[in-house]
């Protein structure tokens, strides 16, 4: 074996000294050779079955499934299924697009209009910031933010309104729904359970995904409320409750997407998301469950994305192997579903790489991300729509272009035909190994600091991510990294191509300005009508369970939700009992 590599290494040396050198000498500006070429000598001792294996088998490097479900290409037209496909039709992406507008009424009307044009997905809810931080719409301290980045949720009444269009064939036992909610995730779970109970639907039929990935909130995204250890106790409650009672619900939708957007490098993204997932697993184990009793209910929303096409493909291969190794080797998983990454989004360009300058170029960028995704086991979605950085919400035109790009990649370019076409590539396998190795090193480093809570509280993770973000910015400013239309190709003869938006968005932005007043009125109405005694009693019960570390808070939260106790009242009990986290991560 060594002899074979010796021969190739010798040839490589000769290549560098003759062919490459000759070529370099023809370019007067060239100081050193830019030639990079991977051959068998770059990947010695490569064990294909151990490192890659077959798609759908451990260690899942080549893919979580033997083929990609979208390859079956289905399209839903009304209730009939044809042999074409539609966004959201694959087994993994049953919920509709991330959405949530103003007051619950506006969001309900949006879903009504979507259902009218054939949407079959359950709501994928975006909540406003007060909701994500456990504040009610009538709290004067958060005035001006109600209904801004998503819908406002105060009480069960708001869930009743939002889910009103989901009846009959779209009832709660037929749809899958998702909520981008972290610190108050258990409150959302409780409200949904209360809603299902009112509709007479048994818990084992429910399918929902709370984001519930609180650990990344402390280092990116920022919607934490309680200290990490206390938040993890709440996480334990949802893990145990969902594993035991609602097997079709996901417990967590984790990942490194938000951290990469905050500036994390590829390796940091992978390392920290795996640290977080390992922490969640340990909590389940410590609660007395076996890994296979809950890990199949773990899901990933996304890892971060980037424009470096080949590296992102390697990254996704590495992420699958690392996850499978973690689950099997560290936690003793036996079920395949515990070991695979089930994720909504594969490789992508990364929203942080969209540019305000010449924004249509973002379409080209997103398609590159879509190809990377398709070639690394994901759906070839051209994400995000090109007008992402303009701050106006996605126009329907931009969505149409993104949707069509995905269709073109699938049915015309046929990039999903072969699973993991890079398997065995000397370069791709080397890079996959390198990314995984570096991620494990950073993983071990955080664990040696006393685990993730310690690394959060000391500010380590946030500072590391911030430093990476600054490093990248410096490279762009110093011309070591180029962004077209931003720091290069910006001359006066370049055109800024724009398209005029002609189709109106289903949500009128002027409604957003009225959302706060409307929602405050809604809440006042609920407070007037509910029973003070029931509210008081259920809150007292909640306080008791919160104080009792051995108790599970979910049933008490359901009782609160049923009494129309508000989100802020429930979170207020936790704020009292657990305290609030104060971020001390200096620069």
């Amino acid at each position: 074996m060594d002899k074979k590599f010796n021969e190739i290494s010798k040839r490589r040396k000769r290549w560098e000294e003759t062919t490459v050198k000759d070529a370099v000498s023809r370019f007067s500006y060239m100081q050193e050779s830019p030639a990079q070429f991977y051959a068998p000598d770059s990947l010695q001792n490569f064990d294909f079955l151990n490192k890659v294996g077959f798609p759908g088998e451990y260690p899942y490097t080549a893919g979580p499934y033997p083929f990609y479900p979208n390859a079956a290409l289905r399209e839903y037209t009304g209730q009939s299924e044809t042999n074409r496909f539609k966004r959201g039709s694959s087994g993994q992406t049953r919920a509709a697009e991330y959405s949530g507008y103003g007051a619950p009424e506006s969001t309900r009307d949006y879903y009504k209009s979507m259902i009218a044009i054939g949407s079959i997905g359950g709501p994928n809810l975006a909540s406003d910031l007060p909701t994500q931080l456990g504040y009610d719409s009538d709290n004067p301290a958060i005035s001006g933010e109600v209904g801004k980045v998503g819908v406002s949720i105060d009480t069960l009444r708001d869930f009743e309104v939002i889910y009103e269009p989901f009846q009959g064939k779209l009832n709660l036992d037929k749809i899958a729904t998702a909520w981008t909610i972290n610190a108050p995730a258990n409150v959302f779970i409780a409200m949904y359970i209360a809603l299902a109970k009112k509709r007479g639907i048994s818990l084992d039929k429910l399918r929902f995904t709370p984001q519930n990935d609180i650990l990344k909130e402390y280092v990116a995204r920022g919607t934490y409320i309680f200290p990490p250890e206390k938040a993890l106790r709440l996480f334990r409650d949802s893990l145990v409750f969902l594993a035991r009672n609602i097997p079709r619900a996901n417990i967590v939708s984790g990942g490194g997407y938000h951290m990469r957007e905050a500036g994390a490098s590829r390796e940091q993204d992978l390392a920290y998301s795996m640290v977080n997932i390992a922490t969640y697993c340990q909590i389940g184990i410590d609660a007395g469950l076996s890994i296979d009793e809950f890990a199949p209910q773990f899901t990933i929303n996304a890892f971060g994305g980037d424009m470096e096409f080949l590296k992102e493909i390697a990254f996704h291969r590495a992420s699958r192997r690392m996850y499978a190794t973690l689950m099997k080797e560290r936690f003793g998983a036996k079920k395949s579903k515990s070991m695979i990454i089930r994720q909504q989004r594969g490789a992508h360009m990364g929203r942080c790489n969209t540019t305000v300058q010449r924004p249509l170029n973002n379409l080209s960028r997103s398609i590159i991300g879509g190809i990377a995704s398709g070639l690394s086991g994901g759906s070839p979605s051209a994400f995000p729509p090109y007008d992402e950085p303009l701050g106006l919400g996605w126009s329907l035109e931009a969505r149409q272009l993104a949707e069509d790009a995905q269709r073109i990649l699938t049915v015309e370019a046929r990039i999903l035909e072969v699973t993991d076409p890079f398997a065995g590539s000397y370069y791709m396998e080397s890079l996959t190994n390198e990314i995984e190795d570096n991620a494990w090193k950073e993983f071990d480093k955080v664990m040696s600091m006393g685990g993730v809570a310690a690394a959060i509280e000391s500010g380590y993770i946030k500072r590391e991510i911030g430093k990476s973000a600054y490093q990248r910015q410096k490279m762009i400013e110093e011309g070591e990294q180029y962004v077209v239309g931003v720091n290069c190709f910006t001359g006066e003869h370049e055109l800024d191509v724009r398209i005029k938006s002609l189709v109106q968005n289903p949500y009128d932005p002027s409604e957003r300005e009225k959302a706060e007043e409307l929602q405050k009125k809604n809440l006042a109405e609920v407070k007037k009508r509910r029973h003070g005694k029931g509210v008081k009693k259920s809150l007292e019960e909640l306080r008791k369970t919160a104080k009792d570390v051995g108790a599970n808070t979910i049933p008490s939260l359901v009782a609160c939700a049923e009494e129309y106790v508000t989100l802020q009242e429930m979170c207020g009990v936790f704020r009292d009992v657990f305290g609030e986290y104060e971020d001390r991560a200096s620069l």
Partner: protein
Amino acid sequence: MKSQKKVRVLIAKPGLDGHERGARVLSYGLRDEGFEVIYAGLRQTPEQIAAAAIQEDVDVVGLSILSGAHLAMTSRVIENLTGLGGKDILLLVGGVIPEEDMPTLKKMGVAGVFTSGATIKEISEFIRSRLS
């Protein structure tokens, strides 16, 4: 001589928005450009930001807002700064700011608005030119 005293900058994130990348990168960057940077961290109320600006005797306040609440937040910061006698402090706003809101911010008294793609150099030169 003015060059003896470092220009003091307060970078703050008003409201509930937790997107910190721009604020942190700019803080590091301005510090390397020779400014004295105070980073106030997440979830500051306009009242807290104005009080910190006065207490720290800063020359510049930079607000980073990506939540769409920029008009309400900025106007409350200005109101509070004015109330505390900090009307002359140079006020910058950054984040996700739709183009159509920029004139409104400038009318309120914001000196400069910097969105995605703005460079640290551009911002530091802007500050220097306005303070010289």
